[in-house]
């Protein structure tokens, strides 16, 4: 045990000293000293703990695997999720429902991005653009033309899907990180345009006075009815996306992600299927945008920044690229966690950044993206 400590000690000192040095100019000597002490002790604890608790970690891993196994591969897990979800409004007050509605919207967004990034392997850093186009189309159709929820929604979704096609068509020849940068550019251009085209979008002031949805003439103003509306669309999205995933379209997407050259050698039209993926993703993102606009009844460009794209992407990679159940859990975690930890709100994005890095290094397949072979 002693030799073990002597071997690890210098490394712990160097790491802690170095971190404290980097921290020094930003918070001064006292804080840097505290950081040094804290890090040094933490590193010692971690080295000891990792030596003693190897078996513990293994048990945790086994539990995690079993938990993943508990989520059935077939549609039964949908029921598992829906039953408690259906009864939620009976037990909880407005605040929880509010968070649940938000979570539902993000689940749809994350599932949509998962089609593009997870299934097809096209990294999109400007996905929020489709969300924004959906929300603004809905808001403008509603406030300017007076269209109701059920006519503005399909129109907005069609507009978003078309926008997805138009944006993607020229860009899809690009590979990997170049494509990612172009999507980021599109996202920013959309936001800057929304912010500056005052006569049409009211610029940074945003659009207010959006009507809440109604159902056969009854306004769904109550939070619980809106909750059921969102739940309906979440279930619809899960079913449709699962079915497409398990068809020849889904197989073509995954083949393109795995090896584009082999996929085209097998007769798959790569550009066409990438376009399908992007417009299919845009479709659901547009729908989520409509729900968001109808829920908030006010939208502004501030809701559609690059950080929002990163947040949605984090949901997808946290749950596990390509896994539908994982992505749902990822979205719920990233919506619920900051709500639960209100007091440390300030550190939310700091933790998100560090979390993304750690995830890429230690669990690139995400929390629930088990072994890579997909179940069909």
């Amino acid at each position: 045990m002693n030799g073990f400590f002597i071997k690890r000690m210098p490394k712990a000192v160097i790491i802690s000293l170095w971190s404290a040095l980097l921290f020094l100019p930003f918070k001064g000597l006292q804080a840097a000293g505290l950081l040094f002490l804290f890090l040094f002790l933490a590193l010692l604890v971690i080295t000891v703990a990792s030596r003693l608790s190897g078996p513990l970690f293994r048990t945790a891993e086994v539990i995690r695997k079993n938990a993943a196994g508990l989520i059935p591969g077939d549609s039964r897990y949908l029921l598992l999720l829906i039953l408690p979800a259906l009864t939620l409004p009976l037990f909880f007050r407005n605040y929880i429902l509010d968070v649940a509605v938000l979570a539902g919207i993000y689940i749809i967004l994350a599932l949509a991005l998962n089609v593009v990034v997870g299934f097809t392997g096209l990294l999109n850093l400007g996905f929020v653009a489709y969300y924004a186009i959906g929300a603004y189309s809905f808001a403008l159709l509603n406030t300017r033309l007076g269209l109701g929820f059920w006519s503005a929604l399909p129109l907005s979704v069609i507009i978003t899907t078309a926008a997805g096609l138009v944006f993607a068509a020229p860009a899809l020849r690009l590979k990997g990180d170049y494509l990612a940068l172009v999507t980021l550019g599109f996202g920013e251009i959309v936001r800057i345009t929304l912010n500056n085209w005052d006569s049409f979008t009211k610029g940074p002031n945003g659009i207010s006075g959006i009507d809440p949805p109604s159902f056969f003439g009854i306004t769904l103003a109550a939070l619980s009815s809106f909750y059921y509306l969102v739940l309906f669309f979440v279930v619809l999205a899960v079913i449709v996306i699962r079915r497409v995933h398990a068809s020849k379209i889904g197989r073509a997407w995954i083949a393109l992600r795995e090896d584009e050259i082999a996929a085209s050698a097998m007769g798959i039209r790569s550009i066409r299927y990438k376009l399908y993926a992007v417009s299919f993703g845009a479709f659901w993102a547009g729908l989520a945008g409509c729900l968001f606009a109808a829920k908030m009844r006010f939208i502004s460009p501030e809701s559609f920044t690059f950080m929002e794209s990163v947040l949605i992407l984090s949901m997808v990679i946290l749950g596990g690229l390509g896994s539908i159940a994982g992505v749902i859990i990822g979205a719920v975690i990233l919506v619920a966690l900051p709500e639960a930890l209100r007091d440390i709100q300030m550190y939310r994005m700091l933790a998100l950044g560090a979390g993304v890095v750690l995830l890429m290094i230690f669990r690139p397949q995400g929390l629930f993206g088990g072994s890579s072979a997909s179940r069909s």
Partner: protein
Amino acid sequence: MFFQQIINGLTLGSVYALIALGYTMVYGILELINFAHGEIYMLGAYLGIIILGFFTALGLTAYNMPIALVLTFILTVFFCASYGFTMEKLAYKPLRQAPKLSPLISAIGVSIFLQNYVMITQGATDKVFPSVAGNEGFTFADIHITYIQVAIITVSGLIMLLLHAFISRTRTGKAMRAVAQDKNMAALVGINTDNIISITFIIGSGLAAVAGMMVSVYYGLVNYSIGYSAGIKAFTAAVLGGIGNIPGAMFGGILLGLIESLGAAYISSEYKDAYAFVILILILLVKPTGLFGKESEEKI
């Protein structure tokens, strides 16, 4: 008016060029878009203010301004280079063998982390850089050139010349080029690629630090979010000149600076921030290898 915009564009452009060099050098060696590079520039801007403020508190600035400035310069470069070095070791090195998109996502994580790190420690409001030379300068034929502008253009020019000499003359510089051409081959002839990668990050971050400091002197204001847009613009500059191509990055930076300031003056200043994105998209779609890049066919 036109020549005034040219001068402003050149100033801005030489800053973009300095940052773009970091992107292009890292991409040349790792094929990684170091998304967090813009944040190193932002750190540079903050560190400049913090360290100069420290010297002011010590009374050094009042005693001898040039010494204080030089010391600030050196310390800022040192700290930024350390951040760049650490970033590579922590967030990218473990991902060398991972699928290509993992390090890019990791880089986005680093970028968010650093932005919020500075926001939490330094506050979300703008920070003011103590005025060093104000708006002083000289004027001829209607064009006003401030001393700061002259300094920015000369310092950037000098640094780029030094970098060029370093890469073409020194042993380390040649090793960097070898690693950029073929990592395995370079390792076979005895080059320590890990060290070369670290050196690349250190140099790139140092250049970004200089850019950050100069911009905070120029505008007098910094904010934790400046790294993102400056980063994207500098990346655009690197792509414009052909990513991986060092003279290309310098040229691309200056070209982008000119486009932005002329565009803001003659087209629309509201969409000023969108120009870089439009150029980025156009160049990637039309000629992804940049203005000077060569075409290459994919290996099967």
